[in-house]
Every structure is written in C-alpha cells, then in structure tokens.
C-alpha cells in the first residue's frame, strides 16, 4: 500500500532477536551517557551504595575468616581425666587403652602421679613443698586428645560419658573459650547477615528514589516515546541499565573500601593472630569476593530499577 517510501529506500527492521540485542546495546550506551551528564548526584548514589554494602560485607568476611582459622586449630588437649586416688598406674593405663578406643578420641596420654608432682614442682619452683609432703597427693592423670573434627558439643558429651566410668574422679573440660568464640562468631555472622539484608533494602530504596527523579526529569521523553510507538520495555531499558551500572559501581567501590580498611587493619589483625600463635593464612577478602560484591550490586541495582520503573514509569501516559 505504500508503494514508494517517502523517506528513501532501504530494507525493513532487522529480525526480532537482533533488534532486541541492538536495543539493549543502545540502552546501555544511552544510560552511561546520561549518567556522565550528572556526575555529582550519581557519584553520591554510588558512594551511598558502597558504604551500605561495605559494612555488612566486611563484618561477614572477617567473621568467616576467623571461623576458618578456628577450624584449622590443632585440637589441643582439651580433656584432663583425673583418676580416683586408689587407682594404680597399671589400672590407669588399662583405662587409657579403653578410652582411646572410643569414637571422638584421637589419643590418650597417661601422666603418672610421680611425674605430675615432679613437673608441678619444677613448674612452680616450690621445692620446699616436696619435703613437707608425706605422700604424693596427686592422682594419675589422663590427657585426652579429641579427634580434630569434634566440636564443643561433642566434647561436652564425651566428658559426661567419661565421668561415670569406674575409677574416674573428675573430668576437666577445658573448652569454654572455644565455645564462647564459636558463639560469638555465630552471633557476629547473624548480625552481619541481618545488617546486610537491611542495607540491601536500603540500597533498593535509595537507588529506586534516584531513578524516580531520573524518570520524572525525563517525563517528556517518555511521553514522546510512547506517542510514537515505543512500549514500556523500550522506555524502561535505559533505567534498568542505569540501576545495574550504579549498583555494580557501588559494589566495586565498596570492595575498594574493604581492601583499604584491611590494609589499615593489617598490622593489628596479624598481632591478634600472633597472640594465639597463629599467622593469618586465609585471605579475608579476595578478588572472587569482589566479583560477588559487584554482581550483587548490579542485581540489587537492576531490582530497584525494576521496582522504581514499575511504580513510576508505567504511570506516565501521553495525555
């Protein structure tokens, strides 16, 4: 019906998929151009997102690193089993052999009462004490080395089981500090995760609001696009890219912030680990974490753009 074109000859629109890909490329390009036109407000938004992401990520990364270090700790002798005073050394050795067969026990070492006293006197320097003692008041002692995979709850159970064995006077469980550390780490991680979720919501809302202002300021353009046959999808695309891009940049900057913080904290962290005779062996935050952070940022950005566009852009209709 249109025999000859009023606008010159040429082939028609390209196939759907190609057109779609072209639209996306064009939308990405447009969104970068628009962002560069408002450097200050966009930089501020990026920084807000960076700080919001950096805080919980840093906490989570630190808690995970400490947790990994704790898992690597060689299990120190954490159970001391004191025999009743009537138990002979031979009986103590028999008891040790039986206990060594239990699951959860790596090995058992018998400290006989004379050695224990000698070591005690050497360690304390109380030579005078030995001459005053009529007999050795110490019982034989068994040191239990738990299997490395056993956690504090297992140790608790093991110590209860051992207490009821005949000839056992007392089992001293020296694992309170480990329990406390584990509880603290679990708490720290929960706080980081909760904080992270709150911050993620904050990112979505902040970015959604920034994009809303963008949509408002481009109302005229959206109306024209819709008037000449552009759908919501066409009008929406640049905003989705802007959201994803700002989010990804926020993730990147938050990664840089975390790297910088770790650089500053490097000395005190190493010092802390040295107090436990450890050196820092795991990377607290590395490139793969950064990739995750950038990806997370862009997903959050895309999400908030979807929400904002759904809320505001679809309402703009030509009048």
């Amino acid at each position, binding site marked *: *019906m*249109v*025999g*000859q*074109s*009023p*606008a*010159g000859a*040429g*082939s*028609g*629109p*390209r196939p*759907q998929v*190609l*057109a*779609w890909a*072209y*639209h996306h490329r*064009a939308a990405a390009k447009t969104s970068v151009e628009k962002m560069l036109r408002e450097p200050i407000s966009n930089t501020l938004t990026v920084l807000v997102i960076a700080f919001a992401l950096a805080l919980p990520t840093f906490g989570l990364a630190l808690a995970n690193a400490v947790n990994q270090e704790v898992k690597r700790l060689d299990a120190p002798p954490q159970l001391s089993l004191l025999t009743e005073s009537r138990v002979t050394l031979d009986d103590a050795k028999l008891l040790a052999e039986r206990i060594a067969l239990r699951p959860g026990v790596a090995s058992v070492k018998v400290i006989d009462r004379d050695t224990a006293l000698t070591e005690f006197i050497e360690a304390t320097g109380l030579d005078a004490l030995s001459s005053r003692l009529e007999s050795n008041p110490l019982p034989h002692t068994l040191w239990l080395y738990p299997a490395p995979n056993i956690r504090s709850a297992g140790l608790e159970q093991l110590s209860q089981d051992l207490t009821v064995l005949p000839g056992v006077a007392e089992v001293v469980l020296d694992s309170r500090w480990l329990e406390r550390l584990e509880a603290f780490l679990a708490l720290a991680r929960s706080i980081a995760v909760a904080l992270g979720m709150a911050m993620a919501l904050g990112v979505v809302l902040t970015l959604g609001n920034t994009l809303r202002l963008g949509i408002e300021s481009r109302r*005229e*353009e959206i*109306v*024209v*696009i*819709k*008037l*000449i*046959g*552009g*759908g*919501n999808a*066409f009008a929406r695309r640049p905003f989705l890219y802007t959201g994803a891009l700002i989010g990804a940049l926020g993730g990147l900057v938050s990664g840089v912030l975390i790297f910088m913080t770790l650089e500053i904290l490097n000395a005190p962290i190493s010092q802390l680990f040295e107090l436990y005779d450890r050196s820092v062996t795991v990377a607290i935050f590395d490139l793969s974490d950064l990739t995750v952070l950038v990806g997370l940022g862009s997903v959050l950005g895309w999400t908030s753009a979807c929400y904002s566009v759904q809320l505001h852009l679809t309402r703009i209709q*030509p*009048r």
Partner: protein
Amino acid sequence: MDLVFDRVGKRFDQRDALIDLTFSMASGEMAFLTGHSGAGKSTLLRLLLLLDRATSGEVSVNGRPLSKIRDSGIAAYRRDFGVVFQDHKLLFDRSVFHNVALPLEIAGFTKRDIDRRVRAALDKVGLLARERASPEMLSGGEQQRVGIARAVVARPKILIADEPTGNLDPQLSAEIMGLFAAFNSVGVTVIVASHDLGLISRMSQRILTLKEGRLITLNTDLRGDS
C-alpha cells in the same frame, strides 16, 4: 490502510465529545479535519491513536477493530502511524538527527538503515544541513519540519497531523501542507486536523467538518486526483 468510524461516541464525564460519528477513509486517501476548537478534532485523533478508547461504536483500522487491541498491543499499533504534533514534541536533549531517528530506533533498524533513512527524511523537508543542530536552535517552522521528518521516517501507513500549521505564517503553512500532499501522492493515508479553512479549501481534498462532536459535512466531491 483504510479506516472506519462506525457510530462512534466518546463521552468525558458529563460531556459528549463525539456523537454518533460515522465515516470511512480508503487506503491512500487524504482528508482534512476541521471545526472550531472543542468540536472534537483532537478527540477523533486520540481515538485513532488509542490515546483514548471510544465510549460507544467502533473504530477499525485496516479491518481491525481497535476495541480488540489490548493495552499491551498499543505501542506496536502506533508504529503504523506517523504523527505530527502542534507543539512538535521534539526532545531538546538530542540533535535533530537523533530526534528523527527515534522511531527507527524503536522499530529496531540497523545503524546503516537509520543513517540513510534519517538523511532522506531530512532532505525531504529541506533540513539536511541542520542534522547536527539542537532543535532549540531552529525556528518554529523548522521545528515543525523536523517533527514531520520524524513522522514519516519509518514509512508509516497513516500520517496524522494535529494543527501542524498552528503557529506558522501563511507561506510556511502552505509549504507544510504541500509536504503532506506529497506524502499522500506516494500512497500514505493522510489526515490533517486544521482550522485554517482558507488554506485547506485551496488544497482540493476531502474535508470532514465537525461541530459539537458531530460530523456536519462529508465533502467527498472536492477530492482531487492524487
């Protein structure tokens, strides 16, 4: 593309904007739509572009009843139209070239096709030399011609113009009407709403006159050969 208005009514709140409107246009026909302001010209065009929907009756374009087009299909439907607005509706944040290119970008043309077609359209309205200018730098008549280039660049099947000569002097107005006649001569269906009776009566085309929402003349005899 032909179009049919069959007993179409449009009611806003308590006021009838169009009443029992029946007429049809053949594919490749050109018509002027005239009447005082408030007579229903804009309402008729809005129904045609699906900016509003008829309260009663049925508008059909190319045999397709518009009531059957869902909201999600409106954008695609509008791509068959080229529209020239009285206030141009150009985007001042981009060059003349990119204003004209917008419908092609929406339709997904290649960059090469876009370049060629935009230049052809700008050449047709005599603005090829201004492709890099911002629309702000142009005069009212030039802006209107950019609007026309944008309306025709994607080779629409129907061209609609709403008061395209509203603010222009008589000579510019005549030039622009001449452009519409030229597009019509290559087979595009053209509807021009205008209250410039002196000008349109000289064009020897069909004239549809609206008064208070009703069609009062169906001037088919004046239709020239195009």
